[in-house]
């Protein structure tokens, strides 16, 4: 038989020398055993995994497929988890959209002074992670005369605002009528409700971040780590699709303070704005302030050419 050093001769008889095959058995077993030990040891970091979700959460169906009983079970589970993690009993409910309501947001660029109170009120209201920091609203400081966002400054920290020669433009989720994020989600974890709010089922999202790539407004945020919120700053008034605490690996974003607005209140960002630059309401009600604005003021939307049809309108006083 010609010697072919790379391939064993399968037709060759077993070695007559018992010592060789015993040696080969031992050396193979040693390598295999140590290989398996190394494989087990490589998973050692999993020892630190303390916050793995419950089986209930793993098997939970999509929000739109939950029966009322299953929804109650899910809410009870969330109450238990929040109580365990933060030591307070939250008021979690599943608020449904109201009929005859389509929410619209208007922002007065003449009045915004860039104080960022909206950013932080939102963080407090919606139980956003403080570390790593998540903020749904981003305020851009733009020089007068341009809308080129590359010229915007996100990190201004002047002693006072507003600064002369600039205007301030807060950006958050526009709850677009033709949302690219909804189009691209592979598992339907984000969709638009009848009142116009684009919502996320945090227990369904797989964290692929395709929606984050698709959003033209930098509206969506991902939990790269388990959120850290100081216990005393938790807002206990929660909604399933809104501000209940999220976990690592899922997306979140502005949802027009769904726990407030579906109860008839204004969102937190509007409440705290010192100049009244933010306006919110039901566009289907012709007497609402947002209807008035769209009728009487010069409004525009960002990146209109992308075709998202935002429900967030910027306007000037005159």
């Amino acid at each position, binding site marked *: 038989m010609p010697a072919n*050093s790379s391939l064993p001769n399968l037709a060759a008889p077993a070695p007559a020398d018992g010592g*060789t095959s015993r*040696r080969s058995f031992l*050396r*193979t077993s*040693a*390598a295999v055993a*140590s290989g398996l*030990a*190394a494989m*087990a*040891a*490589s998973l*050692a*970091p999993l*020892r*630190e995994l303390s916050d793995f979700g419950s089986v209930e959460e793993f098997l939970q169906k999509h929000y739109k497929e939950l029966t009322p009983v299953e929804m109650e079970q899910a809410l009870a589970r969330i109450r238990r988890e929040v109580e365990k993690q933060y030591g307070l009993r939250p008021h979690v409910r599943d608020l449904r959209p109201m009929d005859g309501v389509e929410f619209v947001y208007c922002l007065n660029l003449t009045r915004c*002074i860039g*104080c*960022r109170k909206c*950013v*932080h*009120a939102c963080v*407090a*209201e919606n139980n956003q992670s*403080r*570390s*790593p*920091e998540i903020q749904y609203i*981003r305020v851009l400081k733009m020089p007068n005369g341009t809308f080129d966002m590359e010229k915007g400054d*996100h*990190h201004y920290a002047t002693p*006072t*605002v*507003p600064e002369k020669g600039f205007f301030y433009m807060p950006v958050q989720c526009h709850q677009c009528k033709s949302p690219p994020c909804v189009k691209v989600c592979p598992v339907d974890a984000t969709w638009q409700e009848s009142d116009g709010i684009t919502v996320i089922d945090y227990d369904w999202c797989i964290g692929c971040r395709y929606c984050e790539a698709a959003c033209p407004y930098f509206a969506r945020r991902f939990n790269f*780590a388990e959120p*850290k919120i*100081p216990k005393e*700053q938790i807002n206990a008034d929660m909604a399933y699709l809104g501000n209940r605490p999220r976990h690592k690996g899922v997306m979140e974003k502005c949802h027009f303070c769904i726990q407030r607005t579906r*109860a*008839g*209140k*204004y969102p*937190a960002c*509007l*409440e*705290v704005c*010192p*100049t*009244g630059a933010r*306006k*919110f*309401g*039901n566009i289907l009600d012709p007497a*609402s*302030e947002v209807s*008035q604005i769209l009728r009487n*003021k010069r409004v525009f939307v960002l990146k209109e050419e992308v075709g998202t049809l935002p429900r967030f309108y910027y306007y000037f*006083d*005159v």
Partner: protein
Amino acid sequence: MNDNQKTSAVMAALTALFAGTAVAFWTNAGSSGGLAHQSFTTSRVFTNTATVRLSVAELTKSGGDVSGLDCYACHSKDKPVAPKFDAAGRLIPSVAHRDVVFSRMNCAACHAPEEKVELKFDTEGKILTPAAHTNDVAQHGRTIGNDHCFNCHDPTNLTELHTPGGKKLKLTESTLLCASCHGPSYRDWQEGVHGRHNGFWNTKLGATDRKDCTSCHDPHAPVLPRLKPLPPPFRTVLKGH
């Protein structure tokens, strides 16, 4: 070295390699590859929805103490008040009025409780206007200079206001006085488009709280005070390097 010996050598090397990596994994389990968590808390001032000042209307509505607003506590009815003007014709604000005006500022609207704001008082216990808040009292109008006190205040009755047309208004009706010049803003305000409109958008479920003009605009210095901006977003730093 023949093939068999080479194989033995390789197997031995692999065994050592696997054993070594097993030990490394087990002992290195704690390291998380470099996490950077930035710690950040939200101060309560960020969520304060109060207006920067307390208007007379607000004060009256909420049943607050309006005794300090009694003009005839200091002025006598038969002696008219004479405002002073400088060489350029600008009003020289009276020190006493500066304190009155300032005492209705709502510190908590902008300052956090934990911030140590030091108020200074004069010998009579009145607040001294801090340097940071020395608005030019009576700077109503940048071009026309609507500085004359009696453009708005009624000289014959200091507890009342009057419009340019002569209509008399109570202090709690000051909004109508603003409207007599600022028509477009007033119309917007009526519709809720201008100013602060808080509470419930759905009036069937609750009341909407509409603040009047003087809750935000000090009629003596209507330009809104500049605020200190709250912290910017954490600038994403390189992690794990």
